[in-house]
């Protein structure tokens, strides 16, 4: 067989449809005249066919490699995408809703109202601090929905995703600490417990979002938890203003 390398060198590109039209036409013309190059072309077709057949014929390793893999992954911390189960998140959501609902019931008789103020004093030692304070929603929700309640306590235009939120929470916590003497111990205990629950939900949602920033479910969960916290603080603070 006589090899025409100037032509055979083009045959792979020819088979892969990588040639320009004019070049392809020239190869076609040569192949019509050259049996040797046509034979090479057919051989290359066989090679490709064998490769494609091999792709479908995967063979497992001769020895079981799982033991080695298992031994290694045991010692490796796996970055988790989400550490919460749906059930856990659903339970947290229900709990947060129950907290809010319970407080609505508990504070239902509240008639006083107050505007957001910058009360003096340290952040509550009794009321848990806000674990998310001072942090940003990196990769978190883009929502910046405002909270404008229908009751008499107005915190209008507070974004849930920017510094306004942190400032509002800080002000409310200070006001709550300042006025906590007006609340009975049982009410304080309920508020503290519920704030802790919400803070845990916020922290867990943040942790999960850090691993999966694009998860819209988690983003929505975080926004809702933050809104609940603002709502709870607002209602509790309003209670301290009651005569």
């Amino acid at each position, binding site marked *: 067989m006589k090899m025409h390398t100037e032509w*055979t*060198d083009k*045959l*792979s*590109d020819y088979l*892969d449809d*990588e040639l320009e039209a004019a070049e392809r036409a020239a190869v076609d013309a040569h192949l019509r005249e050259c049996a040797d190059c046509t034979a*090479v072309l057919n*051989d*290359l077709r*066989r*090679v*490709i066919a*064998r*490769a*494609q*057949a*091999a*792709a479908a*014929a*995967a*063979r*497992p*390793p001769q*020895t079981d*490699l*799982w033991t*080695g*893999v*298992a031994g*290694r*992954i*045991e010692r*490796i911390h*796996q*970055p*988790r*995408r*989400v*550490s*919460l*189960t*749906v059930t856990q*998140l659903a339970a947290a959501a229900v709990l947060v809703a129950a907290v809010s609902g319970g407080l609505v019931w508990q504070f239902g008789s509240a008639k006083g109202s107050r505007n957001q103020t910058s009360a003096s004093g340290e952040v509550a030692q009794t009321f848990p601090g806000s674990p998310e304070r001072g942090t940003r929603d990196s990769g978190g929700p883009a929502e910046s929905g405002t909270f404008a309640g229908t009751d008499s306590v107005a915190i209008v235009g507070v974004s849930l995703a920017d510094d306004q939120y942190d400032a509002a929470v800080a002000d409310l916590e200070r006001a709550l600490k300042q006025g906590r003497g007006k609340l009975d111990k049982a009410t304080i205990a309920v508020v503290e417990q519920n704030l802790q629950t919400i803070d845990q939900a916020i922290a867990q949602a943040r942790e*999960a979002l850090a*691993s*999966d920033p*694009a*998860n819209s*479910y988690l983003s929505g969960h975080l926004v809702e938890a933050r809104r609940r916290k603002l709502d709870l603080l607002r209602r509790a603070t309003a209670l301290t203003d009651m005569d």
Partner: protein
Amino acid sequence: MALSGDTAVRSGMNEDVALAAAGDASAFERVYRTHVAKIHSLTRRMLGSHEADEVTQDIFVRTWQKLGQFRGDSAFSTWLHRLAVNVVIERRRSFAIQRERMTDDPAAMDFVTVAPARADLTVDFEAALEQLPPGAREIFVLHDVEGYKHREIAVMLHITSGTSKRQLHRARMLMRKHLDGL
């Protein structure tokens, strides 16, 4: 079911993959057993049988570490395959043989001394494959076996598309010599 599993339902992600992503080692073993043949075949063809076992284990350990990054945007098998190719390429680079394998070695197939095993054409094909110069073999496997395009191979291997095409043709011509006797 973990949240990732719930996401899996929406995106078509395999439930075992979702469970493994949440840290379930038993689910990960099932994932391993489902895919190990294809991954081992890939590593064996690209690196040779002497390295395939170790690199296959490396790939699945890496998979365990990276599962949290899999979003289900593509099929898990596609994601895993790409991860495996990357591990294989890293391995080759770590041996600093990138340049050597791109050198011409027209006599490479002369080292094929094992007679073609006609009763098992797949094994024979793979035996021939192992005799290819590493660079040509890598590109042949990626293009003709695994179905990657030249432009994709060029990106993965940090070479030009032209180099990929030349190495592919070289590999095919060498394989043709071996398969010619069948």
